[in-house]
């Protein structure tokens, strides 16, 4: 780990300005991504601005929305009774990821901003355009069993790993930020994470020194009937091979509205809009779910070892929707 200066942020504006002013500075919250990657030599900030004591740790709720501070711990969000009731997919996604210890440490913003688990990104000596722009992509010619099948580019096939972000993708979430120059932004979650394209090193639309302060979940009737389903190698404490966040609004057996997003198979949280569209007006039955799943994976492209993810993701969507459709209430 390279030596660095530790600064405790005293206010949101001050913390954002401090990172903004130093090109190699980074924010530190729970530390579960940053400290891990600094030990590997993948990240080497010269300044860490600690934001975990800033007043960004509350969950506020009213009839219209939930307002979730960026530094709310993932455990806190996962266990919140009202969040569980109104947006069950959030708690289910969080419970399916990490371990209790990591959920206690890591923050909601850190979760949404976590880095890929691609082994070539995590090895500082491998070619990786995300880590060192222009150095190449060793994953494309190497071991790509865990790599993405959706949203890839010739420069990057790394999976975006967050379960929570997959859930937020179907909830019309809004991200609020404070910029280093004092400005503030309100960013729709859809579009917050970038496709890798030619610049896989830029994972979100945040600018340097721009601090996420809050997430907003608007009240959404169909979110009450939402679900997260994940397949992984291990029974617990493991990243997704494929996962789906789904929500259904069903009336008299017919789908009025549906939401579907995929995790573990794409380079960013992957909303499946065409699949959602296809379900509207259909009977809420496995046949329709399978057809929607086929549509969701229609553009998938596999490498040498990750072709199974396409079939698996289809089954995961079908399974998630089927489980949700038969869920009472």
């Amino acid at each position, binding site marked *: 780990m390279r*030596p660095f200066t*530790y600064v405790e942020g005293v206010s949101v504006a001050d913390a954002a300005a401090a990172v903004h002013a130093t090109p190699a500075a980074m924010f*530190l919250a729970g530390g579960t991504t940053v400290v*891990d990657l600094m030990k590997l030599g993948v990240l080497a900030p010269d300044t860490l601005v*600690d934001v975990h004591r800033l007043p960004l740790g509350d969950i506020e709720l009213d009839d219209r929305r939930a307002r979730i501070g960026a530094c709310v711990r993932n455990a806190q969000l996962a266990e919140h009774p009202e969040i569980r009731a109104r947006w069950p997919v959030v708690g289910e996604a969080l419970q399916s990821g990490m371990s209790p*210890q990591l959920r206690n*440490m890591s923050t909601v913003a850190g979760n949404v901003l976590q880095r890929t688990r691609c082994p070539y990104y995590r090895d500082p000596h491998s070619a990786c355009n995300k880590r060192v722009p222009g150095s190449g992509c060793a994953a494309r010619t190497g071991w790509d069993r865990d790599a993405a099948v959706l949203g890839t580019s010739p420069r990057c096939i790394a999976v975006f790993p967050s379960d929570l972000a997959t859930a937020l993708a179907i909830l019309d979430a809004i991200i609020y930020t404070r910029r280093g120059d004092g400005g503030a932004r309100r960013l729709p979650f859809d579009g917050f994470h970038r496709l890798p394209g030619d610049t896989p090193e830029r994972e979100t639309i945040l600018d340097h020194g721009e601090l996420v302060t809050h997430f907003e979940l608007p009240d959404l009737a169909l979110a009450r009937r939402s679900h997260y389903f994940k397949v992984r190698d291990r029974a*617990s*404490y493991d990243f997704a091979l494929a996962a789906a966040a789904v929500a259904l609004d069903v009336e008299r057996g017919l789908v009025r509205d549906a939401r579907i997003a995929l995790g573990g198979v794409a380079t960013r949280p992957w909303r499946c809009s065409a699949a959602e569209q296809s379900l509207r007006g259909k009977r809420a039955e496995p046949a329709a779910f399978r057809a929607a799943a086929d549509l969701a994976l229609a553009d998938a492209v596999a490498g040498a070892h990750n072709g199974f993810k396409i079939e698996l993701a289809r089954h995961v969507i079908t399974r998630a929707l089927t489980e949700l459709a038969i869920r009472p209430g």
Partner: protein
Amino acid sequence: MVRLTVNGERHELDLDPRTTLLDALRDHLGLTGAKKGCDHGQCGACTVHVDGRRVLSCLALAVAQQGREVMTIEGLALGVHLHPLQLAFIECDALQCGFCTAGQIMSAAALLGEVEHRRELSDASIRERMSGNLCRCGAYPNILAAIRRVRT
């Protein structure tokens, strides 16, 4: 100077900002009960409590823990009286090499607090809630038995 409160005692330490809580405990305070297994948040052997919650001390910078209450395995027993979980781990032979044991016990102690008000705690639920603590010796069934013993 970094001020840390560990097992109720206050310490002022001259630490490198890079020093993790785990290294501060082990190398600077002589509290070697918490173990460095993977050093990347992947095994749970370094589990301690910070403000009553279980965390991985290998991914926590010591400097960021100022003003918080840290508890390690060394602080769990009351003098010579072992914590019920420590006794249950002995009685159920819930350990073999012992390297993950402090982490398992600290994790289980926090788990009991997290589920205090639940009437039922299934085996599956305990297993899931303990899955952040790897045991290569495979003492899992006995660890489950030890936790169940304390719960009932």
